């Protein structure tokens, strides 16, 4: 980490009012700590840090036209009470040692957005993330609201995003996100906290990039909260994709489903780490995590590691991870119907990712993923 930490010299030492005063002090500690080494085993933290500190905050940020029922506020314009709320939101159950770059992004951005969704929305809330270091975003979904969020990005170069979502009691958020640009270095942290009986669905579809690392932490705090995470990843020759999902079951009778299919092509690296953490007192938890990977080339590298940490007895928990090649029986079946091997392989790949394509934008996403599959 030596070079990366040296790069911190280029970082502003001004800690904005909405951030903990000790943010600056803990950065170096966390970047060099054992957590960073463990959680960045398959991506270079030093290179990512170097890329981030060499990048300006995004200048073309614009939340655009937002649906009725949505209010926005710049962190820099918040009153003291709201500043306290922001600080609490950002620090809530935050493991800074696991996500050491969060402080870096906050310090570069210097400002952020609070987006408050007061009621159910008739149209999707759209976040179109620009290039550069994006301002951190807190999205609050009011109790009982039903909301659809589309998070898209066409940014090239370096990009970093911090999105912190809080879903109120009985509210439901369907979140479709995709990153289809390979010409970039991208790091993102998505944190979602759910209150009682709140529901969250994530449909995440991404391709590898020069460097792409996506961290996702789900906090099922409320009793009866549910989260369904579904996604696909495709790495083409020369690209890198590292996704990490942490699901924390904290409330009683919470449910999580996590299903991710990846395809690695050419000389590429595709990593998934999924962790289910069931806290003491989270009785009635029902958790399932499934990660399947296809390696289409000898030099395709796949790393997958499902992890369970359980501190309650009254739980149902299952996990599985597979790494393999295309099923020879299926290839023969398709061949026996006259389908040429190249088309048969393509069909099986399509089927493999289609299993995980659902929700808003499904048709568009399928088309886009097929384009990357064929490239």
């Amino acid at each position, binding site marked *: 980490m030596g070079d990366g930490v040296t790069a911190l010299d280029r970082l502003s030492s001004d800690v904005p009012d909405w951030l903990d005063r000790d943010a600056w002090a803990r950065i170096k500690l966390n970047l060099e700590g054992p957590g960073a080494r463990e959680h960045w085993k398959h991506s270079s933290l030093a290179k990512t840090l170097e890329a981030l500190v060499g990048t300006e905050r995004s200048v073309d940020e614009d939340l655009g036209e937002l649906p009725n029922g949505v209010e926005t506020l710049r962190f820099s314009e918040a009153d003291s009470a709201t500043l306290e709320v922001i600080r609490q939101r950002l620090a809530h159950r935050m493991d800074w040692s696991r996500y050491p770059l969060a402080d870096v992004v906050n310090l570069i951005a210097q400002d952020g957005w609070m987006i408050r969704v007061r009621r159910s929305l008739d149209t999707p809330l759209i976040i179109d993330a620009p290039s550069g270091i994006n301002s951190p975003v807190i999205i609050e979904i009011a109790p009982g609201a039903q909301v659809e969020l589309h998070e898209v990005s066409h940014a090239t170069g370096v990009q970093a995003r911090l999105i912190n979502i809080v879903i109120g009691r009985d509210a439901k958020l369907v979140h479709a996100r995709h990153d289809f640009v390979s010409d970039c270095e991208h790091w993102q942290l998505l944190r979602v906290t759910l209150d009682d009986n709140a529901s969250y669905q994530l449909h995440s579809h991404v391709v590898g990039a020069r460097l792409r690392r996506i961290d996702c932490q789900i906090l099922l705090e409320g009793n009866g909260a549910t989260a369904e995470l579904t996604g696909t990843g495709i790495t083409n020759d020369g690209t890198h994709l590292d996704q990490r999902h942490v699901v924390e079951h904290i409330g009683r009778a919470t449910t999580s489903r996590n299903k991710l299919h990846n395809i690695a092509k050419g000389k590429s690296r595709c990593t998934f780490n999924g962790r289910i953490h069931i806290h003491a007192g989270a009785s009635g938890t029902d958790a399932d995590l499934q990660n399947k990977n296809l390696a289409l080339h000898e030099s395709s590298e796949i790393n997958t590691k499902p992890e369970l940490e359980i501190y309650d007895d009254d739980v149902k928990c299952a996990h599985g991870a597979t790494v393999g090649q295309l099923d020879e029986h299926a290839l023969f079946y398709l061949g*026996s119907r006259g389908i040429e091997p190249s088309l048969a392989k393509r069909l099986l790949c399509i089927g493999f990712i289609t299993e995980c394509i659902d929700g808003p934008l499904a048709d568009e996403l399928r088309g886009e993923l097929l384009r990357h599959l064929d490239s």
Partner: protein
Amino acid sequence: MSLLQVDDLHVTVDGKLILKGLTLTIEAGEVHAIMGPNGSGKSTLANVLAGRPGFEITSGTVNFEGVDLTPLEPHQRAHAGMFLAFQYPIEIPGVSNMEFLKAANDSQRAAAGLEARSAVEFMKSVRTLAESLDLNPDFLKRGVNEGFSGGERKRNEILQMLMLEPKLAVLDETDSGLDIDALQTVANGINRYHNSGNAVLLITHYQRLLNYVVPDQVHVLADGRILESGDRRLAEKLEAEGYAWVTA
């Protein structure tokens, strides 16, 4: 020239000799049935005709309309007119049945120098075929064989046969696991497919399918060879007396 001419075929699977000199001739317009005890090599014959990897021909010949079938890949055999209805049709999640059928049809038409059928026309004809086999057309939207019952999978195989119109249909225990109604539906599909220009090779354990699809010849395959051949009365005798008198 025979449609299929198999001579003195020897086949190993994982180094074990399974077929030990099998000879069989099938002419266009004929229906043949192969019966035999478990482990006799019936499914091996079906798979080796379709070109499944792992089935090694160590000696003997297989000619299809006078052309050596053995160097051809599975898809090339299908283009030549060979069809295998699988004993255990596999699931392919995420690939819809309709998408699969269209890909198969397009591939075979392209190999024959024909243009692909329009999607609308194709879908309409497949739906009609599905209904004729008591398959709910909604099944066409689902993944290939995904969540299908055993009987539905077998009917789906017959649907593919009817859609692809091969020259030789090898049906590997297509009747197993079917109730009486489904058996009749499958048999009707086979009879609808069969004409003077093509042929059917039925591999079965039971005589009951042959009540509906009448074979021109019945063969007993045991220990890798055809030991007995006859007309449909041979199947009735096997049903009544078993295989002991043949294999003794």
